[in-house]
């Protein structure tokens, strides 16, 4: 019923709180970066726990691509109630996940007005992806970009040691 709305509201408040905390401290110039890393770190820990729960009953993954497909289909649909719309890869460790109607951005108006604010709301989800991958054995760097609301792209670069 109202279950989806619960998380959306909580997420909005988390972002607002983290930014408000930061604004009251002195180093304003570092404000943006630390907020994003705080949100990312939160998402990371949540991602680790969630992936443990979701992969409990799945067989082992064949390779990285199999893993990303799992992320795009099962993981995404359990959390955001829909799958990733488009997955592209260069087969060398870089993947781009495109979601045309990202659940946490649908409440924003679709014009250009809030384009600058959007990345704040994507930091947590970037951390979520990073945490999920890290628990599956892949270190990665995840960034997000928005060019047209409410669709967004997550770029995942796997760090090979």
């Amino acid at each position, binding site marked *: 019923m109202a279950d989806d709305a619960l998380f959306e509201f909580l997420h909005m408040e988390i972002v607002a709180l983290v930014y408000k905390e930061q604004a009251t401290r002195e180093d304003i110039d570092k404000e943006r970066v630390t907020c994003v890393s705080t949100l990312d770190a939160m998402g990371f*820990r949540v991602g*680790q726990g*969630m992936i*443990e*729960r979701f*992969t409990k009953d799945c*067989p*082992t*993954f064949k390779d990285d691509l199999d893993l990303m497909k799992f992320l795009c289909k099962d993981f995404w649909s359990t959390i955001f109630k829909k799958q990733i719309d488009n997955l592209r890869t260069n087969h060398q460790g870089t993947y781009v996940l495109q979601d045309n109607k990202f659940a946490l951005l649908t409440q924003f108006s679709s014009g250009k007005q809030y384009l600058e604010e959007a990345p704040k709301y994507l930091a947590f989800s970037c951390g979520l992806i990073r945490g999920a991958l890290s628990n599956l*054995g892949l270190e990665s760097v995840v960034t997000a970009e928005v060019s047209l609301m409410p669709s967004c792209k997550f770029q995942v670069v796997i760090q090979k040691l």
Partner: protein
Amino acid sequence: AEICITSMDNYPLYIRSIPTQGELKFHYTVHTSLDVVEEKISGVGKALADQRELYLGLLYPTEDYKVYGYVTNSKVKFVIVVDSSNTSLRDNEIRSMFRKLHNSFTDVMCNPFYNPGDPIQSKAFDSIVSTMMVQAC
């Protein structure tokens, strides 16, 4: 009998033995069995896609003990060592023990006060493991 949980990088997150004398021998057995686990995991990629279960089965039998292994998707390994004299434990029971372990482990993982990679100190987890070991011995 002993139960051991090791992380991705093969350091122990949780070790529990009954009886507690002769613990060192159990630790040693678990340590050597980790090699067998690694071998089984890396073999999966080359083998066909059908053998992709999490349960690894009997790793190897020594004269006194039987060692069973299980790997999660997050590369956390569970190892159970039981007496060979205890023939009442069938494969299915071992599988259900591993399932229970995995379920409890997932709960520990989702605990916000737990940092992945730390030794597991949850009392609830301890009590579940104790009941399981008492049943097995």
